[in-house]
């Protein structure tokens, strides 16, 4: 497959990714990762300075599922809508089994009866794994966010 085709594939998968979170179908979000896929939401200053702390750290589907469980069952927060806008990726490396790429994202948040605000923007640093059946799963997604000063809580994944 050409780089352009890979880019198109990632664009499509990112549409799925956004839809899963924005519609609150968080189990679908988990299923977009490989079994031991890594998801980090990390403030840009930590990423830039080589500090390892992430705001959300999920190492594999177990931790991803625990995050979903917490969001859905245990965490206390004001109801809100989130909305992801994800740009087309810049594709770096492709092989038969992997895509390395970076996309920009913007996530808005709308609290009940309040104006919409910018929740965060930043970039996804991705490694997608391509299965034999053609499925694309995230082996790594590091959501490095510029918006280091989080507007109170970060509930839904970036």
């Amino acid at each position, binding site marked *: 497959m050409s780089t352009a085709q890979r880019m198109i594939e990632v664009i499509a998968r990112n549409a799925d990714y956004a839809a899963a979170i924005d519609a609150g179908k968080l189990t679908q979000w988990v299923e977009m990762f490989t079994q031991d896929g890594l998801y980090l939401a990390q403030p840009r200053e930590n990423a830039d300075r080589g500090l390892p702390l992430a705001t959300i750290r999920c190492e594999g589907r177990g931790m991803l599922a625990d995050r979903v469980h917490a969001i859905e069952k245990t*965490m206390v927060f004001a109801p809100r809508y989130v909305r992801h806008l994800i740009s087309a990726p810049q594709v770096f490396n492709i092989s038969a089994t992997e895509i390395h790429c970076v996309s920009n994202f913007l996530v808005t948040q709308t609290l009940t009866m309040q104006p919409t605000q910018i929740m965060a923007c930043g970039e996804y640093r991705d490694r997608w794994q391509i299965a034999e059946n053609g499925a694309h799963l995230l082996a790594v997604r590091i959501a490095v966010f510029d918006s280091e000063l989080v507007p109170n*809580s970060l509930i839904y994944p970036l």
Partner: protein
Amino acid sequence: MNSPIHWAPRPDASHKIPNAIYSDPETFNREMTRIFYGPHWCYVGLECEIPNAGDFKTTHIGERPVVVVRNHDGKVHVVENRCAHKGVKFCQTPHGNTQFFRCPYHQWNYRLDGTLRGVPFRQGVNGQGGMPPEFKMEEHGLNALTVTVHNGVIFACFDHAVAPFSDYLGGLMKGYFERTFDGRKLKLLGYNRQRISGNWKLMQENIKDPYHASLLHVFFITFGLFRADQKSAIEMDERGRHAVLVSRRNSGGDNAEVTKDAGSFKEGLKLADPRIMDVVHEPWWGEPTVVMQTIFPSVILQQQINSLSTRQIIPVGPDAFDFVWTHFGFEDDSEEMTTRRLRQANLFGPAGYVSGDDGEVIEFSQQGTSAYPDGECTVALDGYGTHNTQHMVTETAIRAMYNYWREVMQ
């Protein structure tokens, strides 16, 4: 000039907090002057953030920007981030390393201790202009704060007459402080920052309030990190400003007496990946598995199982504060321990399984109290006193803080 909210210092009113103290602008202004800029040590950072000569970071005390810097001789200084010439907040980068500070506007430059080093064209150019002869370099430095560094933690104060840090803490609190900060080298793991739409005191209350921990935080309850029946204590300094919440983790699971009241308890909750709670007891803990210490007015020192952080409170007007988390470990941590701390960090910060709840309810408190400024809050749990306790069903430390607050704000 409008006046701050009046909260009568009658003993019988000590458990009734007037809602307006969370939103009244004049009260806030007085708090800044008397508390944050008065004789109270405010947290500004950790030594491990500025390990080398010339390293600096910027932060705020109250609403005032300051720079924390390590001088060439290794000494830590805290100076106002405000040029002596025309008030420019000269240092705009959050951290870095420099030989001296240079204000961009007219390049007045300062040594790292804040003394004035150079004024361009001070003698004029071609014999014309320049500063008048009576201009004294030593009178135009950056205002330098009093600084104390205690086992790697840096505090500063605008009031040079502040009591020594050890006295400020008191012996009991100092002991807890030195439990974590015993002089070992710290390892910086990273930051989390949030702007919480609530008055800064609500954050202090939150940590001085063991009652909520066993009710609000389902995650805590279920995994036994906090439960109303566990062995625990609230201890304070003599003036009631600082406090620790000390607790020993239960083994988890159900306990009819304390979970029947906690409507939020979710039975049967299991982690799909238990590594997040792979707690390893560190020798220096002693018996407690959790020690949360509030140092009035500006910081919370967290040891919760293997997760360590300082949480700085930076007020932004009466209705909000920035909450800065600095996570750290120790220099001799194994890689496994570092990973453990990073995993457990999922419980804290703006997305924390536990701390996420706190930021949210603080915002809800601000919404309710600011909309009903004539109302009051009731903090009568465990009576009206301000004694230390050996249990968690108490609001004693909140009352103690406000007793001190009323004294200062009078």
